[in-house]
């Protein structure tokens, strides 16, 4: 536990002092603000937060991979040739602790993003009369959704030495996963099954203010699976 925290702490500090953290935070504030303004300013404004959440998830897909790209690919070096993974893998920490520490750091920074966007929720509360349940549901949904994208990003970061490749593959595959959710109303059973893997379909309940056990379990298993795969990739880097 202590080791996980030691690793997470370093990464969180790097987010708050390094350029990537600033870029992600500014993008988030700017674009989430813009989405908020456009939706609230439109004549058909319904003081319903669902469109805001829906658009923000796309934004998350674009910015979260920037947080995870460095986590494992950066340790391998590739881009800068630092190879600090050698230090980590010869320290008395397990591969699980390494992966969990990295993941925890990205989750903590993501939480700070979500907290910042909390001002929008407050504004909605003041300006309109939204359902508090929906706001809470939407925010919990954010956490699970982001947790999924971050785990995916960490996995891709464990596959490659290049941070750029890690970021691009994460964005592309998140978008692909997003798109296959449109198959869920397709008559074909196999396409419907494919859609089940998309995080989006498991997300909509949250926006309606429903936190269902089924969806929570889906997200947790998906995240566990991705972290486990990352752990395997880290372990296998000893063989490569």
């Amino acid at each position: 536990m202590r080791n996980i925290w030691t690793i997470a702490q370093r990464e969180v500090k790097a987010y708050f002092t390094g350029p990537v953290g600033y870029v992600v935070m500014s993008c988030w504030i700017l674009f989430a603000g813009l989405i908020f303004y456009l939706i609230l300013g439109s004549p058909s404004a319904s003081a319903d937060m669902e469109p805001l959440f829906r658009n923000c998830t796309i934004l998350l897909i674009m910015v979260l991979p920037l947080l995870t790209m460095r986590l494992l690919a950066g340790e391998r070096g590739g881009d800068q040739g630092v190879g600090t993974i050698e230090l980590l893998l010869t320290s008395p920490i397990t591969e699980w602790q390494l992966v969990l520490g990295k993941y925890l750091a990205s989750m903590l920074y993501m939480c700070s993003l979500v907290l910042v966007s909390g001002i929008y929720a407050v504004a909605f509360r003041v300006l309109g009369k939204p359902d508090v349940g929906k706001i809470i549901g939407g925010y919990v949904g954010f956490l699970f959704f982001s947790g999924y994208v971050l785990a995916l990003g960490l996995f891709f970061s464990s596959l490659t030495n290049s941070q750029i490749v890690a970021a691009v593959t994460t964005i592309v595959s998140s978008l692909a996963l997003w798109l296959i959710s449109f198959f869920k109303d397709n008559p074909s059973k196999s396409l419907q099954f494919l859609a089940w893997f998309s995080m989006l379909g498991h997300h909509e309940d949250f926006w309606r203010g429903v936190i269902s056990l089924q969806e929570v379990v889906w997200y947790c298993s998906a995240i566990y699976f991705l972290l486990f795969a990352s752990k395997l990739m880290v372990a296998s880097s000893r063989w490569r």
Partner: protein
Amino acid sequence: MIEVQDLVKAYGSRTAVDHISFEVKKGEILGFLGPNGAGKTTTMRVLTCFLPATSGKVKIAGYDIFEQSIEVRRRIGYLPENVPLYLDMSVESYLTYMARLNGVTWSELSERLDKVMDSCGLLHRRRDLIGHLSRGYRQRCGLAQALVHNPDVLILDEPTASLDPVQIRDVRETIKNLAGEHTIILSTHILPEVELVCDRVLMINRGRIVADDTPVGLRNRAASGALSLSLQARGAKDALLGALRAVQGVSGVTVVDGSDTDGYNLQVSASGDLREELARAVVQGGFGLRGLEVPRRTLEDIFVELTTDEAGLAVETPAEEVA
């Protein structure tokens, strides 16, 4: 403290380390020598649990590196060859991070940091970003990182590479002071360093051990074989050569240069150290003896001899008996 038995490490079809076995006792400093690509770094990476061995057994402080890897890693301080550092951290926060990862508690932390920064000459740069340090200071950071948790076993891959002469001396002092309580394996390409620092030398070539001895033993060992003595003497050339060739054990005499009156510089190939016999032959023949010596063989000669292949094969057999 360290026991290596029949260690093999292959990268695909290339065997980088080929059945090596050796032991290091507690408190000993072992120098690892070998030409580029000999397999030094690979061996160290296996010992530090970074790479899994293809076959063989390694025990460090009584723990098996495959089965009790975490226990082994707790006891090892490792300076990798490429000196991995986080360029975006300050010296102090980097060392703190490495100390915490290696299990140093908060209460010991500041004492350990001060001690290790002091011994690596980093105290006045403690707040600088590592990315802004020069190559030599980065090397010092890497060394400090290996020492920070006061490990029982230190594995240092070329610890003095790219340091300035003063710092090289300091680092050697530091390493020597650590011996006794710590067991140290270091690799280097600086041969005099081995004689200054190490208790024992392990020379490897193409993944195989070619010598395992003390630096002195290594130097003396070759002196017993065939020798080429240099001799300066004055007198008639043919008579001189004849007298020398008549000495038992001399297989050949060649003239390097010189004249009857100033004397000749001669190279005498002999089966051993025949200085007395040669001197007697020269004096009894009525020639003027001006000089006679066995050239002092440096570690460098021995290194070249053991690691270039024709010569290496000849010496390999006795070397393996030692190992």
